[in-house]
């Protein structure tokens, strides 16, 4: 479904992690880079990528074109990704966080904010890599939030990893992070471009634009997709202010949720007291004439 050579995809506690180039045999200590794609957009998933490469081969990544994925055109990105796949230098782990899941986390009673989601997802990928028996010599992470704090948190979570570097713009500084960003970004673009779920009206399929609120194509798609009763399809992140504002502007129906029924486990008086039957239930006509039922009549 993703095109190219997906080596393995498997379920980890109900979440899908896709591993690219699983068949390659990594030997010796490795460097790992982690970056994300699709943090800001109002449409589509956020994708987390981790790239793994043997320490002594990492110099060759730059030659293959690994850099900040945002600085490249879409075609270039895909070309670099294909080259990385063919080179058998990099094993990439990617995790997709769907828009619906992000909305749910951020809008729940005790919000699970995007930074916390990001940190936990990155840590999840590292755990997955370690589980596969890979020895991590140095972990490079593009920061989310304050780099120093994030780094301390990661060190605490992974005391066995010798070196951890968390930095701003790590994707352009470290080639291995650039590789991670390319895998994440190309996967996200691919998912958004071919997005097609049953909750979408046929007329709404395609033309999503980049998914960022600044993209006129995305905004025009959102305006077509909004429904005053049903809101947006699952592709849209409900927790983003762009979608909230658009709902208000459309005159979406306000819903008041009634308080939860506190009488849900309440029993009924009729379970205990039975309706009276017999004489007292006879119609007025019979009562007035002092008539009563006689079972021996027939």
């Amino acid at each position, binding site marked *: 479904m993703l095109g190219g050579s997906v080596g393995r995809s498997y379920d980890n506690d109900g979440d899908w992690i896709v591993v690219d180039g699983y068949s390659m045999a990594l030997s010796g200590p490795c460097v790992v880079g982690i970056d994300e794609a699709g943090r800001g957009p109002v449409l589509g998933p956020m994708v987390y990528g981790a790239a793994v490469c043997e320490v002594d081969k990492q110099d060759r990544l730059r030659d293959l074109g690994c850099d900040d994925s945002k600085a490249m055109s879409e075609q270039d990105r895909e070309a670099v990704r294909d080259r990385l796949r063919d080179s058998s230098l990099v094993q990439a782990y990617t995790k997709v966080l769907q828009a619906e899941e992000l909305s749910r986390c951020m809008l729940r009673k005790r919000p699970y904010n995007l930074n916390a989601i990001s940190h936990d997802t990155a840590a999840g990928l590292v755990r997955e890599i370690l589980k596969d028996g890979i020895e991590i010599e140095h972990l490079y992470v593009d920061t989310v939030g304050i780099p120093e704090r994030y780094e301390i948190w990661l060190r605490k979570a992974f005391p066995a990893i010798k070196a951890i570097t968390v930095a701003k713009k790590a994707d352009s500084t470290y080639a291995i992070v650039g590789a991670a960003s390319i895998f994440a970004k190309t996967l996200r673009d691919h998912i958004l471009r071919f997005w097609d779920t049953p909750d979408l009206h046929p007329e709404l399929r395609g033309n999503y634009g980049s998914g960022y609120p600044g993209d006129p194509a995305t905004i025009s798609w959102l305006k077509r997709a909004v429904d005053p009763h049903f809101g947006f399809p699952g592709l849209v992140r409900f927790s983003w202010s762009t979608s909230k504002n658009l709902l208000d502007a459309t005159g979406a129906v306000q819903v008041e949720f009634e308080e*939860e029924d*506190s*009488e*849900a*486990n*309440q*029993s*009924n*008086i*009729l*379970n*205990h*007291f*039975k*309706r*009276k039957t017999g004489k*007292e*239930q006879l119609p007025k006509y019979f009562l007035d004439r002092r008539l009563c039922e006689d079972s021996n009549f027939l």
Partner: protein
Amino acid sequence: MFEARLEESAVLKKILDSVRDLVQEANWDCNDDGIVMQSMDSSHISLVCFMVRASSFEVYQCERNVSLGVKIDSLAKVLKCAASDDSVTLKADENEPNTMDILFESKKNDRISDFQLKLMVIDQEMLGIPESDYTSTVEMSSAEFRRIMGDLSTMGDSVTIEINKGGASFSTKGDIGSGNICLQKSASVDKPKDGVKITMVEPVKSTFSLKFLNIFAKAAALSDTVVLSMSEEYPIRIEFAIDKDVGYVRYYLAPKIEGQES
């Protein structure tokens, strides 16, 4: 002709106040014994009934049993026109009870008001309430009961009432915390009504909606004491006896089902 005369309208006013939050309209069944009303609330969770005994009326005449379909709010409005110490007389045609005549007379007999209230035909189901033997009862001051219910509703929606050897306890749990009020047997020599009498054949524990209990507690205006009667997995009966053997107001409330405490 059905005719019933009460010395003071206040009693009737208080009875109406004790049922009007639960029942909009109900049949008042009049027979030789007195006037009886029984009705469930619209959600069928509780049942209220009252009785005013024939002997407590100054004049009571009921040649034939008759059901008067009363809209409670309308009758309450009419009764607002009476001073508390005015006497009140209810009259209705037993054969065709389409209206009820309500007559107020002031103590000095210098003012007589006469109202006609339209009656309704109410198709109402009567429930048979078994005169069951409750396993435990608590008799206490009605003001104290009202206070406990009010206090506990600041914390939660339901109250668990437990009667055992130690006494009677009322506990609740809510979002902000929990609370427990425990009463022990006590006899107050000076004021018998302030004592707590507990009889227990078997310990019992059930949970009830505080919303309803708070409505019931308003009937404290009718009586100084209240009797709570309970059996396991059975509706609680809360009885307010009206002074001087006039009658009673009784409430029955179905328990909450155990297990899915939310």
